[in-house]
């Protein structure tokens, strides 16, 4: 997948609004593979909606969203499953971890599908993010910041052309934020992928090609 295009897109809930002033909504916008994007947003302007639309779990928008010129509203379940396992990776703002599984099990649940990373490289990522001692602890018992790092590792366990990071460092200190930035840059470069990060304040420090206001 090389391009994600938004053509005059707008969440249904904003249809009545007349004060839309955005680089994304109601514009023709193209995310190109290989470039990195930062989407800055205030609360309530549809940041998570944008991620959900592009990831296919919501369809309540006007306009068109195209992947390589194909309208995503017509994709079948099978096509979405393929995309989510080999083209699109998502670090959800609400993480979507399984609280009864351990940190490692949460990561393995994804990696069992893709077989993308070996056990050693997964453990290495836990170590790099300073949560190696938390691998076998149920996620429910971890802090949100620790859970955020577990979800981040999970998002790396697949091939992708675009990786979406929805507020990836909202609960992390600057040291851990820097580690995440390093890792995601390294991994995305390896895959020739785009990073699209969102932020409502503190943003992931990366060499972005474009910064967009939502």
């Amino acid at each position: 997948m090389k391009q994600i295009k938004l053509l005059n897109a707008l969440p249904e809930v904003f249809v009545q609004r007349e004060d839309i002033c955005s680089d994304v909504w109601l514009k023709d916008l193209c995310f190109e593979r290989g470039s990195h994007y930062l989407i800055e947003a205030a609360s309530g302007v549809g940041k998570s909606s944008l991620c959900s639309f592009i990831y296919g779990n919501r369809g309540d928008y006007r306009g068109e969203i195209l992947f390589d010129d194909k309208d995503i509203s017509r994709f079948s379940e099978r096509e979405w499953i393929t995309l989510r396992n080999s083209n699109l990776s998502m670090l959800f703002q609400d993480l979507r971890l399984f609280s009864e599984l351990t940190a490692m099990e949460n990561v393995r649940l994804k990696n069992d599908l893709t077989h993308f990373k070996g056990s050693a490289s997964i453990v290495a990522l836990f170590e790099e993010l300073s949560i190696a001692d938390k691998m076998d602890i149920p996620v429910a018992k971890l802090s949100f910041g620790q859970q955020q790092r577990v979800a981040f590792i999970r998002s790396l366990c697949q091939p992708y052309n675009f990786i979406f990071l929805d507020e990836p460092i909202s609960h992390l200190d600057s040291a851990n934020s820097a580690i995440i930035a390093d890792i995601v840059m390294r991994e995305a470069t390896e895959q020739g992928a785009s990073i699209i990060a969102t932020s409502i304040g503190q943003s992931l420090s990366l060499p972005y090609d474009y910064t967009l206001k939502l």
Partner: protein
Amino acid sequence: MNLLWKLLREHISLSQLVGFFVSNLIGTVIILLTIQVYADIRPIFKSGDSFLGDNYIIVSKRVTAVGTLLGGDLSFSGDEIEELEEADFTTSVGSFTSSKFGAYISLRMPDTGQGISSDIFFESVPNEYIDVKSRKWRFDAEDGRIPIIMPRNYLNLYNFGFSQSQGLPAVSEGIISKINLDVYLSGNGHNDKFKANIIGFSDRLNTILAPEEFMTWANSRYSDEPASPPTRLVLAVNNPTDEAIVKLFDERGYVVENNKLDDGKIAYFMRMVIYAVLSIGLFISALSLYILMLSIFLLLEKNSKKLENLTLIGYSVAQISRPYRRLTSMINLSIFALAMVVVYILRHIYIGIINTLYPEAVLPSMLTTLLVGGALVAVIIIFNNFIILRKVKSIRR
């Protein structure tokens, strides 16, 4: 342990599953046992007479002393036949045709040379009422071989009466079927010899039955008398226990031959009981399956957030639903296997009773039950899989 299973087994209600297991086991045992019992006792009621179906009855007029003295007519008139044809309980009526020529039969034992001979008669009914393979039940004048069906009573009369008193050997049905009988037919200036074969014995046909085409041919060759009205009729009826039959027959003074109607009645009642019990079994099974589906649906609803998240990290509906489909399939297969064991044990008990009452009965195997049960469980598993897949599809985002 499989991570997906670890995740999805949460909220599984053991008590609901046990409830389903027990109730469905009861339902399945009832269904399979009913099928097995039916398969086991059916041959007892059908034994020995496959020439005439359960729904055929043979009707004649009652012979009374007054009738005999006054020379009463025992034949059925056209109006009477028409009345029977038009009765609601009748599906069709066939007439017996009697021979109008002289017939003489001679039987000689191959080993001893001893034999018996007698004047006989023949009767025929339309071929559609006789359930014999057409190859055997055919007459060709050039071939000169007449297939006949004998009343079983005749053989018993010979074996237990005549042969004992004359020092002749008793013969089995198998042996006598292989013996060639010489039949001499005469009348209308013709005199011919034929070979005859007994192709079977009947408990219900109290006559010497020959094929319809033989009777037509022989009556025209050896007799110039016009066809006389039949004295016996064979009736195909929907339900031999229909009260309307008894009522009409009483009014008209008709009798059902051999009172073999009872066998038909027993077979009919047996079928009714079997259907009733089978329906109860099916009802219990269907109800328990409904409980299982409700239980699984409840489970899916409780786990709906997980199902949604699994879809978002890339699991397909087929993958997510697999643990549940596997669970229900395993439960259903276990129930089927256990039900077969229970039926096997119960059969062991009742088979002793059957053997005591009917020592000569040859009981069938459990294959039919196994096949029917197997087909049933396959249908249930396919149905369960389909429903679960559809439900998961409706829950995921």
